[in-house]
């Protein structure tokens, strides 16, 4: 893991009318590091990711990516960032290859044909290249979205439950690919999941978020014992049910 800070989030806040979705979140991700963002539904994980992606405007705080202020260098930064999310699919009325070509153009990818051919092979979706994306199963569509997420060889990869609709075999393959990619390319990865086994296997560090605040932070293999829990799943349940008691520890 490198020392270069890929992402720096400082005191990030998002308030919708009188509802505080994200409340002063601060963290960073270093080159080659995979950070898990964990928390119950509605904790503020997706809002945090959406703010880093620039599709939700923060109410306060700052986001710096590759050392640059996101608000001032949006387009330049996003050309080296990408994401995959369980709720985001590519348009169903164009084929897999057409979708990948369009997004390759949007991300300024060079040698598009070769890059797409490599990704179709890597994510085992070659046979779907000429199929309209909407005809694919949700697991196949997730793999296509993963391929889209890797198009521009991002230095910051945001993964919002990327394997939620993928079978265990393909999930394992994707986890291995992302781990190898982060280590090889020196990319930072922010990963959310409700699968604690996956988090333990993939993440170097986890952040537990509840009611928009980060409550705990640490190594996913050491953190449960530090809070008197058997495993990460027990710790997750405790965060979800009794966040205040954990915050006091």
């Amino acid at each position, binding site marked *: 893991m490198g020392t270069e800070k890929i992402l720096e989030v400082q005191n990030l806040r*998002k308030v*919708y009318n009188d509802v505080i*979705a994200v409340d002063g979140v601060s963290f960073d991700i270093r080159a080659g590091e995979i950070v898990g963002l964990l928390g119950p539904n509605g904790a503020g994980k*997706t*809002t945090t990711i*959406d703010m880093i*992606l*620039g*599709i*939700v*405007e923060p109410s306060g705080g700052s986001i710096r990516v590759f050392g640059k202020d996101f608000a001032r260098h*949006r*387009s*330049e930064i*996003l*050309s080296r*960032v990408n*994401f995959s*999310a369980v*709720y*985001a*699919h*590519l*348009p*169903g*009325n*164009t084929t897999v290859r*057409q979708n990948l*070509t*369009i*997004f390759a*153009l*949007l*991300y*300024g990818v060079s040698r598009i044909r070769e890059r797409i051919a490599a990704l179709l092979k890597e994510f085992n979706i070659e046979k779907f290249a000429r199929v*309209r994306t909407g005809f694919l199963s949700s697991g196949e569509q997730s793999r296509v979205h993963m391929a*889209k997420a890797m198009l521009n060889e991002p230095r910051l990869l945001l993964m919002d439950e990327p394997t939620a609709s993928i079978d265990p075999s393909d999930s394992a393959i994707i986890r291995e690919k992302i781990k190898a990619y982060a280590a090889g390319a020196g990319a930072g990865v922010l990963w959310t999941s409700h699968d604690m086994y996956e988090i333990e296997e993939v993440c170097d560090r986890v952040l537990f978020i509840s009611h928009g605040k980060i409550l705990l932070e640490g190594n996913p293999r050491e953190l449960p014992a530090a809070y008197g829990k058997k495993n990460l799943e027990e710790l997750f349940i405790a965060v979800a049910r009794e966040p205040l008691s954990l915050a006091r520890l």
Partner: protein
Amino acid sequence: MNSLKRIFAIFWRQMLLLKGNPFRPLNLFYFSALELFLWGVLSVYLDRVAGSDLNFAALILGTVIMSSFMSRVVFGVSASFLEDVWTRNFINLFSSPLSLQEYILGFVAVSIVESSVSLGFIALLAWILLSYSIFTFGLLLIPFAAVLFVFGLAVGILATAVVLRFGPSAEMVVWSIPPLLAPFSAVFYPLAALPLFLQRISFFIPATHVFEGMRAVVRTGTMDMRELVVGFVLAVLYCIAAYFFLYRSYRSVLRRGTFARFATE
């Protein structure tokens, strides 16, 4: 260079959609052809029963053809935008380096292609079926088309901004604006046929100046070029205002965080 690639990506996606389904290209011609046929037959009938020197066909068909051209420009922007609403594509698009300006310029390119193809087809149809040539206007067709194109963009961008601001339930705005403008922009009858208070409103519609100009050319062989200048200035001002409103709508969506759940708005 990358900016041009992004504009091309937005344009290319719409072209792929046109190519991918036989009913989509039909949309470019169907309503324009239907309108041309309806007004063509009506004007031939009126010419026959009126028996005067007034040439109804020449007075109406030109404005009908150019009005359908303007509608195609509007839909080139607004219907293309709706494709991204229907396919819930905003998260993918706006988490990429794509800017709002590039997104809209991609739709402008779509409008240029779709409206040119549609105009060419309808002009050919009018010539074959009704022996009417839009090219009798000569070089004046260029400023006529320019004013209608810029105004069509303004209307398309405005409709897009309304849907972006108020959500997919405002989609009917996209389809209803061009037919709503027609009665007030002197497409089918001269401005003088409208009540005085409506004539004042019509003055502020750039298309009115084009259609009045076309009628003047048919009747007298010439037109007051100031009409075209007024129309063009108004169209440019509306285009700037519409883009400003679109930008405000975009900022509002970012603040409210509705890109992620746009379809439920």
